[in-house]
């Protein structure tokens, strides 16, 4: 079974301090000093693909897993890690373009990659990126390919070469479905799927395998139907009064007496 995991390397925004949130005239926020990381949805997608591969001896279904990103050079560190984790192939579609709010273009590239460069049975995508928060790419890829899509996936089992059992969250619970490939699976909240760390031996043996590099210029991009007009930093500030005291006990008593007692009586 051919599985393509599509991911995005993005800055860890929680590392920015208040003063860093400056929007320039081109509607950019400088995050160049932050190391690119994977968001938790993409981490889960990668780990789930690796676990399916681990289980292939038991399921008797060979898993050919490939990882792909659209990124500029700094993502290389993550791609080397994926090599070390023994993904069969790692692909970077090189781009210096601003894709933060262009899910339509990303979906177009991914679907063209599948149609023209490498036939796949299943695509894994994380729910949304931390920067754009578009939450559209997986759906648009599915629409462009004419494939079905299951969103908020929380569990996947391989049944045979052409069938999976997929558990996903829906608005009032979960649904477990036996499905036929091909399909797009959008990975949602999946506890305990932190991406594994490769061994030093695997880093040495596999980390430096070549990465397939394509360019976004290989793809003729469609016009976007949504356009960014403005960005404004949101202020969430409140009073932020520090409760002082010699000991935690003193502070707790002050908190209750001055701030909580009356409020809790009204609840």
């Amino acid at each position: 079974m051919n599985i393509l995991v599509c991911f995005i390397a993005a800055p860890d925004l929680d590392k920015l301090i208040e003063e860093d949130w400056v929007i320039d005239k081109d509607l950019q926020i400088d995050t160049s000093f932050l190391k690119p990381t994977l968001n938790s949805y993409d981490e889960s997608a990668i780990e789930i693909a690796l676990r399916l591969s681990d289980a292939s001896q038991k399921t008797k279904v060979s898993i050919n897993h490939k990882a792909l990103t659209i990124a500029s050079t700094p993502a290389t560190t993550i791609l080397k890690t994926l090599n070390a984790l023994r993904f069969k192939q790692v692909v970077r579609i090189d781009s210096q373009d601003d894709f933060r709010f262009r899910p339509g273009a990303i979906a177009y590239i991914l679907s063209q990659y599948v149609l023209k460069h490498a036939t796949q049975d299943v695509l894994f995508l994380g729910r949304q990126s931390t920067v754009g928060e578009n939450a559209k790419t997986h759906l648009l890829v599915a629409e462009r390919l004419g494939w079905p899509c299951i969103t908020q996936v929380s569990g996947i089992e391989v049944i045979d070469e052409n069938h999976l059992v997929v558990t996903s969250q829906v608005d009032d619970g979960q649904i477990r479905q036996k499905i036929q490939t091909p399909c797009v699976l959008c990975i949602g909240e999946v506890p305990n799927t932190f991406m594994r760390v490769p061994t030093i031996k695997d880093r040495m043996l596999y980390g430096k395998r070549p990465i397939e590099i394509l360019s976004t210029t290989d793809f003729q991009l469609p016009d976007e139907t949504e356009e960014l007009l403005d960005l404004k930093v949101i202020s969430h500030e409140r009073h932020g009064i520090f409760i002082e005291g010699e000991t935690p006990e003193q502070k707790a008593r002050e908190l209750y007496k001055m701030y909580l007692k009356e409020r809790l009586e009204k609840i």
Partner: protein
Amino acid sequence: MIYKGILNGCSTDIATQAGELNNFISDNLHSEDTVGSTILFYSEKEQRDALIRLVPTESVKLVRITRYQPENILKALTTMEQGEMTHLYLFPSGFAGSEMAVRLAFRMKGSSLVQVKQIEYSGVQLIASKTVYANHVLGTFKLTKKPYCVSLAKGSANDQAINTRDKLIVTEYDMTHLHENQFIKASKAIPRKQASNLTNTRFLLIGGNGMKNKADTQYLKQIADTIGADFGVSRPVAMSGWTSLHRQVGVSGSMTKAAVCIVAGASGAAAFYAGIEKSKFIVAINTDSRAPINKTSDVAIIDDYKAVLDELVKVMREDRPI
């Protein structure tokens, strides 16, 4: 402008969906030249009348289906809406709403945006805003192609009552003949065992990354039970599997609006804060004086959260038996 709200009456969260639409319509779509209606999908005949009472517009199209299945809903919508002059389709904030907004726009050659907070229509384009950069920034976007399909931002429902009126039912459609998509070979719905009770809680205690293991989570849950608070966690705690996902607070979990919210051991990442920002009073307890949560809370204590909470239990017991 002509708009249509789309409701999924097959889901048990239908009242929340209707509340969100009602609130969004009253805030954004009140000009005189705006005409709105609702398309309501449902499957259980006996629920029909109760569902109609939730509809936030005067006219409604009722569409009966066998069960909610995205492909079938899309097929039904594109068939029913072909040739209609609808400018805007509004979907609730849930998983289904965002999926439908994007896919319907693609199939109808329109434009879409999900998790939208506000809209403004100029006659030729729709301007919509939503949070980006993990809830740190508000982005304003122009949608250029009609129909505009948007899903609403999570937590936009409020307690505003829906005007009950004699609904004018425009049309009833029976789409129970639509077959399951063939890629599904078998399916089983697993209803949520424990309904999320955090959205409407009045008193909330939340544990963050300062909880280092399952025992810490259990300790904090016990404190919450003792002081009469509901218990929530930040995303990293939920992803560690130390408690069930329904306790997660933030953009990926519950959006709460407690009268009093105590946050223990959390730094206050913006995506988490979105889940508590509507709280009336926020208390932060953590050991990092530079943590963002200190500035975004009403009061903050810099200290070990366990020592503070243990004493809080004592003082509350002294003051009133708990």
